């Protein structure tokens, strides 16, 4: 997973330009080269949540072929989505998603989008707090939640999560930029510690040479077969779609318009491959090797707890990585969720809103349901924000050809573009119904959902836009 920016958020890490050009195109003097994006993506996609996702693949009974090749293909599709869907619009418009959506959807609908984004970020930050708190369980020996626990199972766990969450919230409210700087120092170290997890784990699983790897991988690590009780069985297609869509909000959902508006060329989006193949390949596989080792040592110990997993492989340095990975990614996530909420209540102080958001994330983190069901939650997150990506795509490329006005809210002065709003609500309603009652798994629903949203937006725009009611503002369009 990533801590990539929410559209309303001006800043992420110190890699990203801060508080600039929020309501104007990025000028040529501020465009950045390929290297800036490689570093940013490689750092952002090694997060605390990778330590949950890898083990959950093993718990889902995935086979070695399915996980390795599913990740290779799925990550490639994610990179292609950044390159061909998101970046071409970003480098032509050079606007934040927030501002572009405001032009299309109107201020009130964007506020609603921000609310949805903020709530999802809160839960995601909660999962990161959960990850960090598991490291403290190793030291203080309190009972920690199991794989199928939805509720906190000990006072010690609740106290640890709330303490970690409160600390992260206070730091996010007071010293966001300090932690962002610390995150930059930590990024290369974290990548190597994740690599060390994998190497140590492989040796402990019995791999003695590279030639042994595939045999041990198939027999001992990703064995396939039935998933653990309470988990969904993962096949090649599950892994592929999960890897493709776990950052759906950022590429197909267009959040990263805010990032690539700084790119000199749209193909610089290939830099996302650094994040995908370091974070969503190496880190996930490393974390899953540690979990397979735990199951090998004690098949009844199915708890997915990054703290004990990391401690077994790399000791205190491994535990520090768990804390740092959770902390440095929860920090900007809470900050961004706070900004999203603050956009709804502009008069509230940023400090108070961020603090409150952080505490909300801490409370969410105390409930292990989000972290233990992270695969499903991440898919849900992408599904919720995906329709707006389709709206942006269609509005940019197809509006004129289809005979309706692009940037309709700006052109007509409406504060709620019902064509975009209904596209969002109807797509979500249909996708939810398909998942709940139609037998479609949540990992697969977003692809047809995107096409449905695109068609809906075209149809509804032609239906709801008054003929000749508005001309697209030429100065801002392409």
């Amino acid at each position, binding site marked *: 997973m990533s801590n990539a920016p929410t559209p309303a958020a001006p800043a992420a890490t110190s890699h990203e330009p801060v508080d600039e050009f929020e309501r104007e195109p990025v000028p040529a003097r501020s465009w950045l080269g390929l290297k800036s994006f490689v570093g940013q993506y490689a750092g952002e996609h090694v997060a605390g949540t990778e330590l949950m996702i890898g083990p959950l693949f093993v718990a889902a009974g995935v086979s070695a072929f399915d996980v390795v090749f599913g990740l290779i293909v799925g990550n490639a599709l994610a990179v292609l989505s950044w390159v061909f869907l998101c970046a071409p619009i970003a480098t032509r418009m050079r606007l934040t998603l927030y501002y572009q959506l405001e032009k299309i959807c109107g201020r009130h609908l964007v506020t609603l989008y921000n609310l949805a984004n903020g709530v999802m970020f809160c839960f995601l930050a909660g999962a990161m707090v959960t990850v960090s708190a598991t490291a403290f369980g190793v030291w203080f020996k309190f009972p920690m939640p199991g794989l199928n626990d939805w509720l906190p199972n000990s006072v010690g766990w609740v106290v640890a999560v709330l303490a970690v969450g409160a600390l992260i919230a206070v730091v996010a409210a007071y010293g966001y930029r300090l932690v962002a700087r610390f995150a930059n*120092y930590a990024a290369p170290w974290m990548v190597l*510690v994740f*690599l060390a997890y994998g190497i140590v784990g492989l040796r402990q699983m019995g791999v003695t040479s590279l030639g042994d790897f595939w045999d041990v991988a198939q027999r001992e690590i990703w064995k396939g077969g039935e998933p653990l009780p309470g988990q969904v069985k993962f096949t090649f297609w599950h892994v592929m779609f999960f890897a493709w869509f776990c950052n759906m909000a950022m590429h197909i959902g267009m959040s990263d318009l805010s990032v690539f508006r700084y790119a000199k060329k749209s193909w610089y989006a290939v830099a996302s491959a650094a994040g995908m193949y370091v974070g969503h390949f190496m880190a996930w596989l490393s974390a899953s090797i540690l979990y397979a080792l735990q199951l090998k040592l004690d098949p009844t110990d199915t708890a997915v707890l990054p703290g004990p997993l990391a401690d077994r492989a790399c*000791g205190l340095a491994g535990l520090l990585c768990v804390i740092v990975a959770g902390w440095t990614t929860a920090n900007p996530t809470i900050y961004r969720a706070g900004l999203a909420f603050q956009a709804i209540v502009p008069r509230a102080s940023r400090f108070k809103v961020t603090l409150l958001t952080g505490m909300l994330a801490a409370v969410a983190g105390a409930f292990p349901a989000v972290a233990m069901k992270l695969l499903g939650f991440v898919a849900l997150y992408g599904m919720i924000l995906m329709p707006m990506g389709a709206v942006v795509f269609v509005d940019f490329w197809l509006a004129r050809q289809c005979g309706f006005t692009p940037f309709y809210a700006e052109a007509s002065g409406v504060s709620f573009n019902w064509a975009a709003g209904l596209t969002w609500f109807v797509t979500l309603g249909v996708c939810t119904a398909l998942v709940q009652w139609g037998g479609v798994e949540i990992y697969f629903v977003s692809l047809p959902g995107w096409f449905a949203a695109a068609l809906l937006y075209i149809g509804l725009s032609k239906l709801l836009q008054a003929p000749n009611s508005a001309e697209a503002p030429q100065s801002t369009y392409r």
Partner: protein
Amino acid sequence: MNFVFRVLSYLALGGTVLPAALFFGDRMGLEAVKFTMLVCTIGWFVTAPCWMERREG
């Protein structure tokens, strides 16, 4: 001085992953791996800000 910090930090960074590789080749015990990784972690966080800070300037 900047150069010295940079070299030390890269050595520390290498020392974070090298013990794992030595463990894989049966050249180092697990406890030694854990200890070396911790020392190198401290080394990285002490030295890296000294030159990364200036570079970010």
